[in-house]
């Protein structure tokens, strides 16, 4: 039984960075922009979060630094694809490789450097509940922030005017134009906000989960987040569930090894990706029905109506 609890608790801890990135990608894609550079935004977020924490001594300021770095990278994407109308796939991937190079170069000073990271804090009362307490309420503060962030993002998207405008940008941007709004401004804001969330996800990885910085430490979580958004059919609540599922897949290897099972490390490492492939194969193009219309145009490479 404790294996299950360990895996699920590990799922929450390891899945939170994916969840933040998935939420960021959801916001971006809801406005009609795919950002394949999410992995890159997580990387710069992880390094900036770590460096700022190291310099200031405060992981809270570090988390803000991570979000800011992710937003900065995403603003390049917004400039290229929203303002300059460049190809979304090319821009996103290029930014990923840019982030990989930049973080490797500037991050070398921080490899092995120790910081004052976020520490585990038990929520009084709740943390004692069997199972639930161990899984959800013996965690670091950024995880508690995510419990608020998910319903908050849902609320903003579906119950506020701002969210309605973002979704309209993703569904039918000319409806914004006729109502006197700027599509470019709304999409740019959504892409940058999405980048900030991805950067925060990266910061969670370096200053709350691994408590270390090393080169390419995100290793594919950003891409899992992009895939996750599709099978969560662009719903923040389902992104949360999906992120925990992938987090649990990631947590399976250490949990088994801790119990002395001699399972091949490499086989365990590919579990999240095999899981992704399986979900993609099962769902096929079914989720596409829920996709924002403007996003489908990007998929189908059709020119947007002017």
């Amino acid at each position, binding site marked *: 039984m404790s294996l299950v609890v360990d895996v699920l608790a590990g799922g929450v801890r390891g899945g939170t960075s994916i969840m933040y990135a998935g939420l960021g990608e959801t916001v971006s894609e809801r406005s009609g922009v795919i950002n394949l550079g999410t992995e890159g935004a997580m990387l710069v977020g992880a390094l900036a979060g770590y460096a700022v924490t190291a310099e200031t001594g405060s992981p809270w300021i570090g988390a803000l630094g991570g979000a800011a770095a992710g937003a900065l990278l995403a603003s390049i994407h917004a400039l290229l694809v929203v303002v300059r109308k460049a190809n979304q796939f090319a821009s996103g991937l290029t930014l990923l490789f840019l982030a990989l190079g930049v973080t490797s170069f500037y991050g070398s000073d921080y490899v092995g450097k120790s910081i004052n990271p976020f520490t585990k804090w038990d929520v009084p009362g709740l943390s004692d509940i069997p199972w639930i307490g161990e899984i959800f309420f013996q965690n670091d503060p950024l995880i508690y922030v995510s419990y608020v962030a998910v319903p908050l993002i849902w609320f903003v998207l579906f*119950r*506020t*005017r701002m969210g309605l405008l973002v979704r309209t940008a993703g569904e*039918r941007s000319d409806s914004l134009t006729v109502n*006197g709004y700027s599509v470019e401004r709304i999409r740019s804001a959504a892409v940058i906000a999405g980048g900030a969330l991805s950067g925060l996800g990266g910061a969670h990885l370096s200053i709350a989960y691994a408590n270390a910085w090393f080169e390419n430490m995100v290793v594919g979580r950003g891409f899992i987040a992009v895939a996750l958004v599709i099978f969560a059919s662009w719903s923040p609540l389902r992104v949360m569930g999906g992120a925990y599922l992938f987090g649990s897949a990631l947590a399976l290897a250490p949990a088994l090894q801790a119990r002395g099972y001699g399972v091949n490390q490499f086989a365990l490492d590919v579990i999240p990706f095999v899981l992704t492939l399986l979900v993609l194969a099962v769902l096929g193009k079914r989720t596409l029905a829920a996709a924002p*219309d403007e996003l489908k145009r990007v998929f189908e490479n059709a020119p947007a109506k002017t």
Partner: protein
Amino acid sequence: MSEAVLDEPPARSAELAVPLLSVSKFTKHFGEVKANTDVDLDILPGEVHALVGENGAGKSTLLKMIYGVYTPDSGRMLVEGAEVRPGSPADARALGIGMVFQDLRLVPAFTVVENIALSMAGGQFLRPDALAKQIDEASAKHGLRVHAKARVRHLSIGERQRVEILKVLMTGARLVILDEPTSVLAPQEVEALFGVVRHLRDLGFGVVIVTHKINEVRAIADRVTVLRGGRTILQGVIPSDYTNTELIEAMVGRAVSDLVADRAPVAGAAGSAPALELVGVRANGDRGNEALKGITFSVAPGELVGVAGVAGSGQRELCEVALGLRSTTSGAVRVCGTTTGSPRAALKAGAVSVPEDPVADTVVSRLSVLEHMALDGRALPRKRMGLNWSMIRSRSEKANSALGLKMAPLHRKVSELSGGNIQRVVLTRELSLDSTLVVAAYPSRGLDVLNTRRTQEILLEKRNASAGILMISEDLDELMSIADRIVVMHDGHVSGILSADEFDRQRIGELMLGGAA
């Protein structure tokens, strides 16, 4: 600026109503193009005002100036007696002017509530339930049945139009402008729309309805304004004071008599194989859905068969299957007795086509008109190593003068031409060829009254020369005046086939909606 003074014509000042909208001497020139010159229009509260004119008459420029999209070069605009100058659609809306565009601008994935929230002022937070209640109240008051919580993608075009109108009313419009609202509707839906329009008129709203159909002017309009060549030809006259001939003459500039097809059997056509024969044809649409669900009918040589149906009922796929452009999943397609499965085979059997969307399907925008005329599917005339351009040129000129559609000059690039001009290039090329089968989808799309007439005459000439004609049209009057038979499609099925003596708008309309009476 114009120093023009608005002087009310005496006939209307007697009505004692201040016009909701009054436009005087609006002028807008785009370089050489005089889109509007001294255009006048006034709309009273509680009236339905038809705005009619040929393509390029300046209707849409006028509407765009009223709606704040364009700024007039000169002229004045008054709303309820006060001079205004809307600089954007938002300004126009604030003045109580609402516009329902021809291509409806609703977001299909959103609910009716969300769509209406998008254009209503309000706080940062959406209150779906409160707004739904407001929508229900407004829809009861204005006689517009709308289900507030429904997703727009599940609504019919007619329902979507009602949502658009309701949206415009809820944002405070006193004047509702409907831009060619009937062009997307089935006849029954047109009647429902007109019911709504009459109700709005009785509530004191001003309604402008843009159309080019005289029978709609007669059915709904209290007054009519006719534009031609960017000028007001008739301003705010009462339709019953004018005959159809006079109204068409005002639109076109000269008299156009009614076209009457004689429908006489074509000698020598009997006994030969059908020009087009479809037996139990099934085919999938672009999105993998089944678009044709067992189509069986044939077109005899010397017969013009019209296809009626609400847009998207399978007409496009029907044409493509007939021409071998789309593969069937089952059933047989024969052109003149030979089974065709490829465009090449269909061409060889003598098929020509006017596609639904020539810009997307036929023309290459960077090529000239002459180069398009060369690409007619026949072997190109050669001259030593190259092509015999002088021969292509002379046969193009011959085709142009034979058909009389006044095609654009041969050296012009197609990318510089308007939709109507491109349509004339395609029509001239395809209809000048010797053919046994003509598949024409919306052949008069983008054409004005005169060219529409000429195109119909050409199709009848081809019919009388023993070709089989399959003609898709959204204009029932057009089909009923020239077709020998009408095939009605609904949702990928043939819901009825009527011969000329059975033609009846009501019946065809019912069949278009699936046959339910």
